[in-house]
């Protein structure tokens, strides 16, 4: 019996030694992301990379949304459970980079010259590069052609104005159909404000700058749409989401980002139309954003990680995501247009040229939440005039910035 136990123990020891030896051979890179729709693209990149680098394993773990990822990162950062590579967005970057937990990639010579400079710059702080640009996005107006036909309204053109937009929403509204879905996204509202010459933050990003007539004017126009029944109110929007309303054909127009295109194209097929954002006094602006790939400062497999990051910046890797997002590599962005030949995706490509950042430089999360909250109150009908809203928003945001 004792011999048996000894034998078993010896066997276990040998086995564990071999497994250690195997573990030494292959480096596992943990890759954390959000958005299930992007898993196939990321998996394809990982597969291609690991086929060429058999010593590396890539473990993809996907969270439903950015706050899910944020929670996991908060729980693991600084421990050995932290991921080697993770998705980072503007908000996370604004919070994480000052804390020193995102690795500075400047010294590793990762070639990002082919990638959208706006996104690369967004992750560059004090000349230090903290992420590899992954994708980019922009806004446009999606519309349902059959509802335009039914109402006898002409399809909008790229040169339309905010007044045209409001007029179109009015003409499209009929029993059971609403002109514009309204939007729960703060960025949609920022687009209107920028286009009319208004600002969200002061130039240095440390104070709110929304309390101006230029910002109030387009807000008032949107408020009128809501109060006259041409757009959903906040409560209606929370009972039926903008996407549900638009894809089920009870709303004629919705304003959303380029990442929605595949869902809308699937739901509406040939009835889907896309047109650029309406312009205001100051032209057109689309609040611009893009995800990056980052790694942690405490990464134990830095060499392997950097090599993989170099791969992620290449055309071959970037092009794998064209069906879900606009890649940061602008050469393959034109391939992205070919994925949806029947709709005017050029509206999004054009919008990239008038993109704008939309975050404060301090307390980015809190300040943005303050805007989102005041906008939700606006949709709820808590403000009588746009001026009232602008004053309240400025106050709330400045309070958040002062935290």
């Amino acid at each position, binding site marked *: 019996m004792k011999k048996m136990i000894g034998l078993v123990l010896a066997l276990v020891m040998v086995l564990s030694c071999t497994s250690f030896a195997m573990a030494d051979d292959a480096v596992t890179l943990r890759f954390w992301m959000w958005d299930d729709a992007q898993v196939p693209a990321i998996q394809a990149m990982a597969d291609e990379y690991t086929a060429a680098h058999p010593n590396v394993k890539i473990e993809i773990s996907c969270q439903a949304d950015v706050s899910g990822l944020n929670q996991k990162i908060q729980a693991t950062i600084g421990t050995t459970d932290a991921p080697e590579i993770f998705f980072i967005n503007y908000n996370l970057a604004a919070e994480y980079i000052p804390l020193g937990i995102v690795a500075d990639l400047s010294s590793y010579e990762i070639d990002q010259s082919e990638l959208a400079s706006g996104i690369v710059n967004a992750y560059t702080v004090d000349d230090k590069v903290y992420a590899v640009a992954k994708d980019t996005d922009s806004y446009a107006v999606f519309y349902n052609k059959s509802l335009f036909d039914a109402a006898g309204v002409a399809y909008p053109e790229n040169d339309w104005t905010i007044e045209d937009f409001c007029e179109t929403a009015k003409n499209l509204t009929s029993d059971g159909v609403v002109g514009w879905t309204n939007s729960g996204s703060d960025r949609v509202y920022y687009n209107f404000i920028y286009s009319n010459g208004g600002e969200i933050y002061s130039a240095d990003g440390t104070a709110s700058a929304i309390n101006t007539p230029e910002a109030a004017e387009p807000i008032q126009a949107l408020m009128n749409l809501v109060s006259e029944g041409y757009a959903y109110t906040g*409560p209606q929007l*929370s009972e039926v989401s903008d996407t549900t309303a638009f894809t089920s054909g009870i709303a004629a127009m919705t304003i959303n980002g380029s990442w929605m295109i595949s869902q809308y194209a699937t739901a509406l097929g040939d009835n889907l139309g896309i047109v650029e954002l309406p312009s205001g006094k100051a032209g057109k602006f689309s609040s611009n954003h893009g995800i990056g790939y980052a790694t942690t400062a405490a990464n134990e497999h830095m060499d392997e990680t950097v090599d993989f990051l170099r791969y992620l910046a290449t055309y071959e890797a970037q092009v794998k995501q064209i069906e879900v997002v606009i890649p940061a590599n602008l050469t393959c962005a034109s391939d992205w247009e070919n994925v949806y030949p029947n709709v005017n995706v050029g509206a999004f490509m054009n919008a990239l040229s008038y993109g704008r950042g939309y975050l404060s430089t301090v307390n980015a999360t809190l300040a943005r939440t303050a805007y989102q909250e005041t906008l939700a109150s606006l949709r709820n009908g808590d403000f009588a005039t746009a001026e009232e809203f602008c004053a309240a928003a400025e106050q709330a945001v400045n309070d958040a910035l002062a935290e």
Partner: protein
Amino acid sequence: MTNSAISERDLRARQRYDRKEISVAYLFLLPLLVGIIIFFIVPIVETFYYSFTSWKGVGVAKWTGIANYIKMFSKDKKFGLEISNTFAFVFGSVPLTLMIAIVIASMMNARIKAVGFFRVIYFLPNVTMVAVVVMIWRWLLNSEYGIVDLALNSLFGIRPAWMSDTNLTMLSMCLISVWSGVGYCIVILLSGLQSISPTYYEAATIDGANGIQQFFKITLPLVTPTLFFLLVTRVIGAFNQFDMVYLMADNASSGAVGPVVNSLRTLVFGVYQSAFADMQMGYACAKAVFLFFVILVVTVVQMIGEKRWVNY
């Protein structure tokens, strides 16, 4: 002299024996204790510590003294909302749950047909996940396409927005909580009711007491220990209710902010928002500490009150 010497030796022997027994007992308790210390006690102590820092959840925690507590009581407008919403939820859901549960439980305790069937039916919501319960109710109560909306609209011509009218959202949540909590309380109360000796009822019937008198004079007083247990656990549960609030307030089109969310925002949800959405883990810890003391005080008050109305 001899007697006392013997008894002293006896005593000492017994003590030694006891001590030995105690250490063995602790050895058996060790696996559980280690778990409790690692997973409960240490995090609780850490929560207290971080409540005095401006920790973001990542990075280094900076000691800020009682700044978080000052902010909580003087600057944060949402904190007041969180307190009132929490109490609204506790008082709106727990008493109603218990009242309905005791009525249904005493009916089920009577000799009626198919009582097993009813027990299963009433207990079913309790074996369903809260997430599922809330999602189904959100569909039922949706003011655009919900079946409740359809019924109310065709019968009375009213279309209350249960999920988005900020005057109704808390009421909706309390009702959903009652619906899903009643089953559990019924089962516990039934076991309490069945331990009441039928002789009391026989005697009361002979004396001419009717059913309602019997309920208030016999059933209710004798089931108070069970009621007390349910009251304490349900109140703590309601204070800590998170999943229901999260799912009710969750709204893909506006994120977790805005008037609807604020009308439902309880303390626990506020802790979650501060910690994971606003990236203010230190402040969230301060709120959690406050919630801890609220529950502690409420429970102690209940324990003191116990002597006044609970009959053992």
